[in-house]
């Protein structure tokens, strides 16, 4: 039952990514992600896609992905056996394609490795750095993660090395399952600062306290084609999260960060 619910939520996420991608108002998009064997991401986004870059650590998984999407008329189908962070860190900067839609669909969280600066954060930096070289070209980054992964302290320790003290204070004040979400938002905001990006937080949802999904549209400078309003990355601190729990059929909007006595967003 849980698996089915999660799958329904995942499909809802894919549909939302499709909606966000439509707002880019560009034909022939490139997808980058970990579509797994059944490649649901690609089938959902199919009407908008021209190229796909499929990443997985297991070649047998990619073999099945390859077979499943073989009937789709895509210009480029790239299959790369790699860890996604390793790919973003090492291969993506030299990849000739630029991903318009990236879906980091994790079973875990964000910061896994012993040295996140060598892997996840470096991977993110390289990812945003490549996109920052293409101004006025908005792109979608979707991220699903489990809020209960490695300890809260891992996030705090890691981010304290790159975030200003007032932002770290916000993170320290965030409790429970919201901590990872807050940490990732702060991490993304930091990337926006580093690469001078504008954003639109298209969706951030927490499903039954087990799966978080965040869809953000970024752009370096205004993109006249994109039909979403792109603004200050500090919106990442303000925008609430949409929480779905098992008792209520209607989700609630929850403020992630406790902001009243801070000047950060002013």
């Amino acid at each position: 039952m849980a698996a089915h619910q999660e799958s329904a939520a995942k499909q809802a996420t894919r549909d939302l990514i499709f909606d966000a991608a439509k707002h880019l108002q560009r034909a022939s998009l490139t997808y980058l992600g970990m579509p797994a064997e059944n490649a649901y991401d690609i089938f959902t986004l199919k009407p908008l896609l021209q190229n796909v870059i499929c990443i997985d650590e297991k070649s047998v998984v990619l073999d099945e992905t390859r077979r499943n999407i073989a009937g789709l008329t895509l210009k480029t189908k790239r299959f790369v056996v790699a860890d996604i962070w390793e790919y973003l860190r090492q291969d993506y900067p030299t990849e000739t394609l630029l991903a318009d839609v990236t879906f980091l669909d994790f079973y875990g969280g964000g910061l896994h490795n012993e040295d996140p600066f060598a892997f996840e954060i470096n991977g993110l930096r390289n990812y945003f750095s490549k996109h920052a070289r293409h101004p006025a070209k908005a792109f979608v980054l979707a991220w699903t993660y489990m809020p209960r992964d490695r300890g809260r302290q891992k996030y705090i320790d890691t981010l304290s090395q790159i975030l200003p003290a007032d932002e770290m204070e916000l993170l320290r004040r965030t409790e429970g399952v919201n901590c990872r979400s807050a940490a990732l938002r702060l991490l993304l905001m930091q990337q926006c600062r580093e690469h001078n990006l504008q954003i639109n937080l298209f969706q951030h949802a927490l499903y039954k306290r087990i799966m978080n999904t965040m869809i953000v549209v970024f752009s370096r400078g205004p993109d006249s084609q994109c039909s979403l309003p792109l603004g200050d990355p500090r919106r990442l601190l303000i925008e609430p999260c949409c929480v779905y729990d098992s008792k209520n059929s209607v989700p609630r909007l929850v403020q992630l960060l406790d902001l009243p006595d801070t000047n950060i967003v002013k």
Partner: protein
Amino acid sequence: MAFVRKQIKFTLRDIGSKVIDQLSSDIYSGPGSIIRELAKNAYDAYLPVDPDELEDEALPRAIVISRENNGGKGRLIIADNGVGQTLEELKANVQISISRKPDELDNATGFRGLGSWAVLGAGSKVVVTSSKKGGRKQSRLTMDVKKIYSKISPERTLDDILNDSTCILFEEQEYDQDRHGTTVEIVCDGPPNKIQDYEINRLHRYTNPTDKQLREILTQSCPLPFSAEGGAHEKIHQLYEKIGYVPTRITLDGDELERRLPVELTEVVVHDIRVGGRLAAKVWVASNPKDTGEIHHIDDARHLLGGPGIQLMRFNVPIGPKNLFSDGVVRSGILRWFVGEIHIVLEDVLPDASGQNLRAGSARELFIEAVQSFYQELEQSAETKSVRISMERKLRKGIEAAKKLEGTLSATERAHAESAIAKAVEVIRESSGTGKSVSVTGKRTKEAAKTPTVRKARAEARRIFHAGGFLQRFGSAKTHRHGAGQKQKTTPSTRNGDKPRTVNLDEFQARLGRALPRIREIGISNEQIDQLLRIITEVVNGEA
């Protein structure tokens, strides 16, 4: 003493394993024949599927070919969204010469029942994955080519190979997707190589996306449809309906492969070829109505026509090179004035396994004769067209020249204009005669003169020349519609019946200029000509 009948039973154990290579490499020798078989199977997979259902399912009616090459390991994948196959149906890919297609499917392109054997040496592994429309299972056939070839020996039988799951493996799994179709994946684990004496990875070079040759192979051997856009293409699509071919897109690495006619080829004519009263083939032929000679407008990369000429086909699958069976039948190169396709519809005229010729048989011989006489008709029409275009060109130039003569022209321009008119008048005269022409050229001229474009140009020229008095000047009484007379030379004449004419200086100079070659022909030197011209000048100027 008498023979007593004995029952001897045969099984797969009585067939040597070497037959496997004979079924693949010997029959499907080149990359074109392998890829053609795969494309044909993918095409046939759509035949049982209702096109409306495909549309509802948002599945393209397409044969999707994609390739990859990473560090020497290559893959070529041919996928369709057709009806798909159950595990039992997948088994038919391995069965030998058992094909239900001709009985179950109208207009199926495949009929040999050699299925996956055609592909065997193409890679080191062949994986066929399929899900049947409406089914809830996904089936897979994996042929480990290396294992198969390593096990072939005089001691082993077909039974040893077919029933060895390390060689040929069937698998099945639950499948909850709505998608259906078949994916054939040819995996090349490196460049061409030999296992015992048998070659594997033969398609390795084509797995590289930068390779250009696969596109050419597809052009020459696969049922690429014509674009549906453009007026000239409509006739071809109408013909598709009549031959039972359903346009099915073919894409290579995301690029749609569609044949197109160059815009200059506006004349598309449809013919029937009959054998013994039966319709044997439907034909379309395109040409440039405004030009003669070999068609030069074809860009192979853009039009995917494989150059000018006539292509023999069955269900839109090309057979052999262009202009097959034309050697010694028509003038060399004449068929390159056209581009066209002969679509065989006779059931007993089939391509051979190489796809380069027709299968032997009496039907083949009769069909070839009919095709050859069609080629001869094309040759005749090319020659008539040549005459027609020449006539049109001369008439048009004559009309333009007559209009120019109304203005002020230099002596040379005037001379040229008059020459053009003279030639046009000659055309009017030749094409207006009522007598029967005996010579081939005469017949072509008469035939060409009947075409609407020539008739129209001739009428216009006649009107303009009559008004300008050119018919009288450059022609004979015969050229005039109301006057029939004996043949006369149409070179410009200073005489016009008995009427005296005044010739201005410019005109005189022009005429003299035109006459110079004739003066030279007499054999006098340039100095003598110069002296002669001086004398004439003095005469004209009244100085003599």
